[in-house]
């Protein structure tokens, strides 16, 4: 049975491997089925992401699904997984409201089933419920925006939406945009609709969470791009400026909130999920800037910001799937997601450690990896604000830059922490001591992605050319793959330029030169292993080393106003008379999730209150129900009579 499943997974990976080829055609391929398919450059770009990630993740799944094989076979997992990939593919190629919503729901349901795949744990069921409620909340808004467009244009076809874009009144566009933004934003995980993300991603099997985080939430970005650029008919008009402003500020808030929760998290997959919120925020900052620049009729800057945003979309898909697969590998061998019981894994699983390090460096935006390129482009877009002739907006963008810079700083700290605590120092538990390297297929899946991350980092024009041709940005001619990214200022001088390939070469040659230099000056010396310095007390053990919680404690203290930590200290003393001689001191420190406390709990309790009141009319007696029907009938008759 396992073999048949593996065959399905393999065939899917072959198909998905073929998809990038179709993406490179980049023409309009309108074919008409019952459910119309429409693949233009934008769809092709997202299909490329899907194809790349699902190929690697499928390869990884061959090994990973054995994790579940012992328990209940992999047929269900394989079926759901493949169906999930298929539905994402069909979402980004749909060309009418019906097919879009149909596949959008299929995607939501298959991912819901994947979230509750390990249904033995009650917490997974709970997170599945949160997920499905939130995702339908979003779908409701998307549906509403589609219906308004239908009323306006009288058609369900996306082609008609596209043509009608210029003639639609601005007010309608504004309403449609708001509804679509809330709807897709829920799927993307923007604050304050993000609460499902940190629950659903850790619960799903890691191959599914890699796909969910890397690709599924990108379909929301796809939807937003479609609504803004296609159906919204974005043009150089001040009316659109506030769209960009909304995207920008929500993006800034999401990125800061996401990263601040990520840095204190000790469940590795939850930390990654929070970091997804952060990265969606960065993508939205780029998208928002692009809209603002377009509104102020600055097309070249708008393209810069759009490229930054889409490059980050691609990059996030790459490194987040890599990190989720590595987290899954850890779970696979030591059966825990809690970082406090990891440690020392770099010696047990050297390859996974190396691949995770590549992912961590690249998500932290460090050169010469891919995360740095998109962060650099976003920063340059932020630095181009002097061209916007509106002081308030300029100052607001300066604050966004503060948020962005803070995100970058804390983001790097987050991944230092995750890597340091889970892979370095002594093993913190028996489980971690028995860790072994994962099977080759799993390593291969991760290796493919890590290689992509490195290539996209040192040859950024591969990504940039892909985006510019996919989005049909004609003013931006394709560049030599080894060229410099160069931006010039108004006086024609060089504003900024970057060539990551040369940076890498410089790094390597500097290291080589100074290695020789140090060998010549220092002559040959020997190396001796000895125990870590313990101040002469002897016996350092794993309990004394820094843990995940203690490592982020200073940051928790600095951002106290945000976390509002609750510290509960319990002391056990030997004798009441002497409180200083303690047997045991226990500190229970929890950070609160302000959004759940302040926003969701009141809403939920209000709903429960309301439903309680409604229940009063549900008496269960037949004659009462007959009375209701009677009243309704009379009211309807009156209503019909009154309307002319």
């Amino acid at each position, binding site marked *: 049975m396992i073999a048949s499943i593996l065959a399905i997974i393999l065939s899917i990976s072959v198909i998905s491997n073929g998809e990038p080829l179709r993406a490179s055609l980049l023409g309009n391929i309108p074919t008409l089925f019952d459910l119309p398919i429409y693949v233009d450059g934008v769809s092709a770009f997202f299909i490329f992401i899907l194809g790349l990630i699902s190929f690697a993740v499928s390869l990884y799944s061959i090994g990973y699904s054995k994790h579940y094989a012992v328990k209940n076979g992999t047929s269900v997992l394989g079926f759901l997984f493949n169906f999930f990939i298929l539905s994402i593919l069909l979402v980004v190629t749909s060309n009418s409201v019906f097919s879009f919503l149909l596949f959008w729901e299929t995607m939501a349901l298959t991912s819901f089933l994947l979230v509750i795949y390990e249904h033995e744990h009650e917490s997974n069921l709970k997170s599945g419920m949160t997920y499905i409620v939130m995702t339908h909340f979003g779908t409701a808004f998307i549906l509403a925006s589609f219906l308004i467009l239908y009323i306006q244009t009288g058609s369900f076809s996306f082609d008609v939406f596209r043509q009608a874009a210029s003639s639609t009144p601005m007010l309608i566009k504004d309403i449609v945009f708001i509804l679509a933004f809330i709807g897709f934003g829920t799927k993307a995980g923007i604050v304050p609709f993000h609460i499902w993300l940190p629950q659903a991603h850790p619960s799903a099997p890691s191959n599914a969470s890699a796909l969910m985080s890397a690709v599924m939430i990108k379909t929301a970005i796809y939807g937003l791009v479609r609504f803004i650029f296609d159906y919204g008919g974005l043009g150089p008009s001040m009316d659109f400026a506030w769209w960009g402003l909304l995207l920008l500020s929500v993006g800034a808030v999401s990125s800061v909130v996401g990263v601040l929760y990520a840095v204190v998290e000790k469940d590795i997959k939850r930390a990654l999920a929070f970091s997804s919120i952060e990265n969606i925020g960065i993508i939205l900052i780029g998208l928002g800037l692009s809209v603002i620049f377009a509104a102020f009729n600055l097309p070249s800057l708008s393209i810069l910001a759009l490229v930054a945003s889409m490059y980050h979309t691609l990059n996030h898909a790459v490194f987040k799937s890599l990190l989720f697969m590595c987290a899954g590998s850890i779970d696979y061998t030591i059966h825990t997601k809690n970082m406090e019981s990891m440690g*020392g894994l*770099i010696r047990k699983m050297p390859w996974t450690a190396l691949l995770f390090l590549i992912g961590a460096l690249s998500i932290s*935006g*460090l*050169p010469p990896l891919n995360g740095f390129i998109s962060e650099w482009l976003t920063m*340059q877009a932020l*630095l181009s604000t*002097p061209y916007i002739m509106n002081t308030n907006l*300029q100052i607001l963008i*300066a*604050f966004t*830059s*503060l948020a*962005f*810079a*803070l995100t*970058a*700083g*804390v983001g*790097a700290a987050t991944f*230092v922490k995750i890597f*340091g*605590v889970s892979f370095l*120092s*002594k093993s913190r538990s028996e489980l971690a001591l028995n860790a072994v390297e994962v099977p080759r297929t799993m390593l291969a899946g991760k290796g493919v992605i890590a290689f992509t991350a490195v290539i996209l980092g040192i040859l950024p024009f591969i990504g940039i050319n892909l985006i510019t041709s996919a989005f049909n940005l004609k003013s931006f001619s394709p560049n030599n793959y080894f060229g*410099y990214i*160069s931006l010039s*200022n108004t*006086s024609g001088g*060089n*504003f*900024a*330029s*970057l*060539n990551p390939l*040369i*940076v890498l070469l*410089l*790094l390597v040659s*500097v*290291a080589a030169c*100074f*290695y020789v230099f*140090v060998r010549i*000056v220092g*002559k040959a*010396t020997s190396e*001796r*292993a*000895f*125990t*870590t*310095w313990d101040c002469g007390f002897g016996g*350092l053990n*794993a309990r004394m*080393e820094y843990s995940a919680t*203690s*490592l982020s404690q*200073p940051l928790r203290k*600095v951002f106290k106003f945000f976390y509002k930590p609750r510290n509960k200290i319990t002391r056990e003393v030997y004798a009441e008379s002497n409180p200083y001689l303690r047997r045991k001191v226990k500190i229970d420190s929890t950070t609160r999730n302000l959004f759940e406390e302040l926003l969701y709990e009141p809403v939920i309790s209000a709903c429960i209150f309301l439903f309680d009141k409604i229940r009063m009319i549900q008496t269960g007696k037949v004659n009462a129900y007959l009375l209701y029907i009677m009243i309704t009938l009379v009211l309807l008759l009156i209503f019909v009579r009154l309307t002319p």
Partner: protein
Amino acid sequence: MNVDIITVILGFAQSLILIALSPLITGIMRKVKARTQKRIGASVFQPYYDIVKLMRKDDVVSDQASWLFRFAPWVNFAAIATSALLIPVFIIYSPFELVGDLLLIIGLFGLARFFTILGGLDTASAFGGLGSSREMMLSALIEPALFLTIFTLSLNFGATNITTLINSASNLHVLITPSVLFALISMFVIVIAEAGRLPFDNPATHLELTMVHEAMILEYSGKRLALIEWSQSIKNLILLTLMINIFAPWGIAKSVSIETVGIGFAVFLVKASVTAMLIAFIETRVAKWRLFRIPDLITIAIASSMIGIVFFYI
């Protein structure tokens, strides 16, 4: 500036001179500090002796350490020496001026720090973990401050490319605008913070009295320690050079001839030593702050760059 072979060689040489001179500046700082405390102090060349001696010593590596621990000092040094190659020191030219900008330098510093922090965690020592944890917190705050300072500078001088930026700074007649002044305040705080000097951290002590950097590198010895010490000096001098070349670009060579380069070099040496002395002098006047008061100081840097940005726009 028309670029010929001599310019390229000089441009490359100035970076090597920066790398070579950096321990001297550290030595001068220590000397000034000692003299203001009525001590004689070690020779200004002491940092060189230390580095060479450390290079000749055998390494002791913790038995807990992995390949990352052995690898980290090299990445750290390569990243910082590479950023030294990108900046103009006494001629407004760098052979790699198109390779990267100030944001790349932030990135390279980030890379160096990433590996140093991991090196501190790798040996399972509680003290190394403590240093790493604090460095993590500080770097998460210094990075936004540095980015915002660059934001203010790029608004004022129209570039993040370092050569263009220094060039336009040196061509301005009025350099002192409120916006630039606030950027200078912010930059000065960052220079002190990145150098790990008082009131942030005390570089002169070891173990108990040191909170951050020295705690992280406690387990290193021999060649690797030499590299870390040296890269720390280079990093300090890079930041100093950036500060003096952007905020006081007078005297920097704009064309290549014996006089201009000679003057440029002499002026650079004087400016760098004076700034270093100033920092050392300030250091004797303040006490180390509590760790959790330090974010306040970085907030001042962030706030003053924000004020600088606002001043530019209104």
